[in-house]
């Protein structure tokens, strides 16, 4: 098989992985810091795509949609935390799980009622239409943009968590919330912000995926499953794990598609099974952690 085809395939795998990373990241951050398994993550991804589309058509520019939708839906996420999830802290892990599971149904049905169950076209921004000649083959500009944007978001996120005071509080809060409260930090506000961030990342994933797929109310359900697989492979709660596992899953799907295309969906579940057999806590997970 010729080398340029393999490189092109690798690149499409990375682009696929980039969207997986963004969605899995939101899921894993919320679990790692708050101990909440957010089953509404896929629905919020879908809401993000609709919000992006709506804002883009309102302002006439995709870029406003890309910027504002994650902020708006992130704020909506904070509202969900403040009104609903906050009441369930300190209870069994199943309680917020069931709550968000129910919430996902409400969100999907709500969108069906408002926007209908048909798919809606989400046009690619005019600047990014078409393909770029990479010398060895053509690759869609938009997908290259997605890879770059996700890399930038990851960098900003990493710098914030590792190099700033806010990041320090967040990391310490995840380790031991009680001590943080004793030290005079309002941990409730930290959790509020973290949940908002997680939801905002889901929405960003939705807006980014919009121009690559048709936007419809069920688009989040498959994404939720994929995000869970990535989080489990990477280790629940691990940010590095989500990034590595997301790329790994994207590239595996892509490479398997080259040799056995009908197996392309199954490969990520196979990968998850293998990882769970060898390292039950996931690649970067901490053993014995329960929220």
């Amino acid at each position, binding site marked *: 098989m010729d080398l340029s*085809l393999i490189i092109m395939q690798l690149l*499409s795998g990375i682009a696929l992985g980039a969207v997986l990373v963004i969605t899995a990241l939101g899921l894993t951050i919320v679990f790692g810091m708050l101990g909440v398994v957010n089953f509404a993550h896929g629905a919020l991804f879908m809401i993000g795509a609709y919000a992006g589309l709506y804002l883009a058509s309102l302002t006439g520019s995709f870029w406003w949609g890309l910027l504002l939708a994650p902020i708006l839906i992130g704020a909506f996420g904070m509202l969900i935390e403040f009104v609903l999830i906050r009441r369930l802290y300190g209870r069994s892990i199943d309680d917020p799980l069931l709550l968000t599971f129910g919430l996902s149904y409400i969100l999907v049905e709500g969108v069906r009622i408002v926007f209908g169950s*048909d798919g809606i*076209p989400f046009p690619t921004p005019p600047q990014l239409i078409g*393909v770029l000649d990479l010398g060895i083959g053509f690759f869609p500009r938009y997908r290259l943009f997605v890879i770059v944007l996700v890399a930038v978001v990851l960098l900003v996120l990493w710098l914030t968590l590792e190099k700033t005071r806010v990041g320090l509080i967040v990391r310490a809060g995840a380790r031991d919330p009680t001590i943080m409260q004793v030290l005079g930090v309002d941990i409730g506000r930290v959790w509020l912000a973290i949940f908002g961030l997680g939801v905002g990342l889901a929405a960003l994933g939705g807006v980014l995926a919009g121009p690559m797929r*048709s936007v419809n109310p069920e688009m989040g359900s498959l994404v939720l499953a994929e995000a869970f697989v990535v989080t489990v492979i990477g280790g629940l709660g691990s940010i590095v794990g989500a990034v590595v596992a997301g790329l790994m899953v994207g590239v595996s799907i892509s490479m398997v598609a*080259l040799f056995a295309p009908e197996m392309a969906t199954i490969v990520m579940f196979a990968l998850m099974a293998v990882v769970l057999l060898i390292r039950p806590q996931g690649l970067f997970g901490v053993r014995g952690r329960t929220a």
Partner: protein
Amino acid sequence: MPKSGSTPKITRRTALAGLSAGAALLAMPRLGRAADETIRIGFPTPLTGPFAAEARDQVKCAELAVKLVNDKGGIADRKVELLVRDDKLNAGEAATRTLELIEKDKVHAVVGALSSAVQLAVNEVTRARGVIYVSISQSDTINEAKDFSKYTFHEALNPHMTTSAVARQTLKKGMKVAHLVADYAYGHEMLRGFKRAQAAIGADSVGEILHPFGAADYSTFMPRLMSMRPDVLCISNFGRDQANAIKQAVDFGVKQQMKIVVPVILHNQRLAVGPDVFEGVVGGANYYWGLETQSKSAAAFNTAFKAANGGAIPTDYGAYGYSGVGSLLAAMQAAGGTDTDKVVVALEKLQYDLTKGPQHYRKCDHQSVQSVLVLESKKKSAMANENDLFAILANDAGADDMLRSCSELGHAT
């Protein structure tokens, strides 16, 4: 860890179960009484899931067919009632719902199902219980002798008819053809149809890629498809898979290198991704509203649908709901009631023209012989209005020789 939460949950569930059992008991005698007067048609269709848009149009049109008959006084002074059930695009769910329709709701016949696997499940149930089933799924394994029964009818087009009509319009001798195919019955049947048509025309296959059913991302198949350097890419999948696959192929610049052809071009999916993506894509269809300039039946159907649905136009899959239910009701009318054997005979003799010209069910396998349209998606600037989606490239009149022969399907001739 709160343990207290689990106790009230069980009581609530028990209470709910009790309540619904009570409700069912109350509903029972009413249904029993209704059995003597109304004619009930069961209609399983995937109202939720990736084919929801097509399913909803089917329901609207099926309701229209029922309404038109009821407006004229029903059949033998009996009103007709349509019982719509969500099969969730799942064979098990469809079998359960169909069984319920037959055993509990006492339907006189079943029409519906969109997916190939689901129609086979419905057919299993109806065949075993001797209930008429008119399938409106594009898959035709149901017509082959092993699945066939005298109660089984297939109103929709089948893969052989659409692929050969599309291939005639798009393929030429010596052309190179690549295939992207959904890995389930529908995709395999379409691929078989295309390859048969290709062989007859003298075009060559340069490769086939099977993709998982319901995939959201097709980007990983594109580099390999492009490296095959075909003249034509046949994408044989359905519903949102069609929209996503074409959209992503276009993103990868596939249209600059090759023509995209589909066995069945879907009205709702064209709407879901917009004119620029679909521009120039060619595919087969059972119905397109624009046929009204060529066909009086199409014009009449459009008018009736618009009147019932606030000016909206009927879609391709919607038309199946209308002709599937409509042909059955016409046969019941001719048979003077719901006696299954009489209706079967009436269906076999029926000559009907509901949406696009004359149709009839072939005797040996009960496949509806009908015309096939070949459509090309219009450029945005060439659209006269927002409903002006396709140009009609061909309208092949229905004929028995468009179908695979009775003996090939395993029927005695």
